[in-house]
């Protein structure tokens, strides 16, 4: 008489908000998309009603709730001439990040593979351990969206613990991981279970959104092709447009590179980690003045190759790009990373073709 795990639950808007509010009441730090002035951004909320689950994506990803823009890695003070070092204070609350688009949830999974494989980063890990992600499937795609080209879908479950699918004015809620099940354990008995018809409707929605996306998939052979394209002149043309503002890295759900600086004085302070970007000139400049990547051409090439060649070659072909499209939307120079990748792949194919003909 093993209890069948329900395929999901069929929630009203009110039930959903009550669940969120209960999480807050239980002491969970609730984070979700909030409309603030003309931006939609992730914020910790004290009222479930302030969360916006309407169509569209947030201005930037929720990665700062796992990898803060700036965080102390340890603190130091000098007492009687002797340094005392202290680890950061323990985290006191669990957090639930809700309303995360599937591309952003996949971005968190990319951060996991940077910070939790190889040398594990305990600062990232402790936040990740206490975080549950409830994603939100997409009912439409904007022209910059290309999750389907980057290995995802508008209903993708990678990186999420539970997923919310808006259907006909109600919510189909599915639990994906034990963490997700834990988050809804208290309320789920009061909710009606979803049916096979809901699954069919969800599937139709996914297909409809996917069909509205025009960009063709990044193919498995592209990383190796790109890696061989390092010396091609096409980078010159692509990199010359980059202005080194690095907005692409800051809004990217999977960009993980960071800087470390002492913040303080000789008596007290901390070693701080902050987001950084490979498109900044100082990123790689040696103290001697030598810079292995002296211009935007080399820096932009690094950005593309790290995401579409080096990372996937090392990690089972998964890209360090989830196709959220924010960098395309926000680049002041109008650079489209997907088109850049295609252009380099094309150039490399022409190169190979030319050398075979000669």
């Amino acid at each position, binding site marked *: 008489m093993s209890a069948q795990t329900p395929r999901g639950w069929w929630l009203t808007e009110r039930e959903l908000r009550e669940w969120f509010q209960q999480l807050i009441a239980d002491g969970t730090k609730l984070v979700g998309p909030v409309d603030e002035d003309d931006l939609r951004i992730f914020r910790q909320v004290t009222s479930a009603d302030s969360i916006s689950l309407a169509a569209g994506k947030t201005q930037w990803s929720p990665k700062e709730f796992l990898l803060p823009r700036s965080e102390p890695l340890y603190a*130091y003070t000098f007492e009687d001439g002797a340094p005392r070092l202290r680890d950061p204070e323990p985290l006191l609350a669990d957090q639930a990040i809700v309303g995360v688009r599937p591309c952003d949830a996949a971005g968190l999974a990319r951060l996991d593979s940077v910070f939790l494989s190889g040398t594990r980063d*305990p600062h990232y890990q402790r936040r990740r351990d206490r975080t549950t992600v409830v994603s939100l499937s997409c009912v439409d795609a904007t022209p910059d969206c290309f999750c389907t080209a980057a290995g995802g879908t508008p209903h993708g479950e990678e990186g999420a613990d539970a997923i919310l699918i808006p259907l006909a004015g109600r919510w189909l809620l599915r639990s994906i991981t034990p963490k997700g099940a834990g988050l809804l354990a208290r309320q789920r008995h009061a909710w009606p279970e979803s049916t096979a018809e809901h699954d069919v409707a969800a599937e139709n929605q996914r297909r409809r959104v996917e069909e509205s996306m025009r960009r063709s998939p990044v193919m498995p052979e592209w990383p190796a092709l790109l890696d061989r394209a390092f010396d091609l002149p096409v980078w010159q043309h692509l990199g010359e447009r980059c202005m080194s503002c690095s907005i692409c890295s800051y809004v990217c759900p999977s960009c993980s590179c*960071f800087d470390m600086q002492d913040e303080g004085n*000789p008596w007290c302070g901390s070693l701080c980690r902050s987001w950084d970007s490979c498109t900044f000139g100082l990123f*790689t400049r040696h103290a001697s003045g030598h810079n292995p990547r002296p211009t935007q051409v080399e820096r932009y090439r690094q950005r593309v190759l790290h995401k579409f060649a080096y990372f996937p070659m090392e990690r089972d072909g998964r890209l360090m790009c989830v196709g959220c499209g924010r960098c395309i939307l926000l680049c002041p120079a109008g650079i489209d990373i997907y088109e850049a990748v295609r252009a380099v792949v094309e150039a490399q194919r022409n190169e190979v073709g030319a050398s075979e003909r000669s």
Partner: protein
Amino acid sequence: MDNPYRPDLMRIVGVRDETPDVRTLELDFLDREAAREFSTAWGPGQFGHFTVWGAGECVFTIANAPPLRPAGGDVRIECTFRAIGKVTNALRGLASGEIIGFRGPYGNTFPVADWKGRDLMFIGGGIGMAALRSPIQYVLDRRAEFGQIVILNGARTASDLVYREEMWEWQKKDGVRVVRTVDPGGETPEWDGEVGLLPHVFERLALGPDGRAVVVCGPPVMLHFMFLSLEKLGYSPQQVVTTLENKMKCGIGLCGRCNIGPFFVCRDGPVVTWAQMQTMPKDM
């Protein structure tokens, strides 16, 4: 928390000026357990991150070799650095007895096991000698295990030559030849070494590639011309190793700035063969 970014505390126990702007520090761990843990992982060629609180961290090669016979729990490390930026100038401002931070050892080691029974040549340009001092000490401590040893130490001027006192000690050992050189124009009236750029002096020595392992460390432009000279004299890319240098922050493969293609200098280097270097993209 097992915090990889929190350094161990080390006391400066010795300060030696190599040149007007290059200094060597001797450092002792304050904590014996930290010293023990460090020494179980330490090999020649590795590097560490050194902290001056309030200024920041910087990366240096560990410039001495693990002792042949460790004495109790005491581990002393040395670093040689040029005062060139914010942190290195702050470090230069510290005196013997003061405490700094250290985390490491990081990276791989020189292939010392492969060198057994072979003749060795160490070629260092400027502060590149700092990376060679650890393997030099290592092989001199085990002199009988290796063949003839040639050490070629070059600098821009006579006053920029590092380890000038120690070179006499190295030279005294059986089968060790030390050649000192300065760039043309860098000599003084008293200079009694060679005059010439390292690649030229190397070629003049006319030492062939048979049975010899070569280690060459120095600035990128020197490496470029050294490789041309090594090629000219018939050396194969497999018998030459060097160390890569890149801007680093974390030292543990996470911060994302020291890579050359998929190769992370902190994680996969810093020691590489010339052959490996030839397969890398020109991103250095």
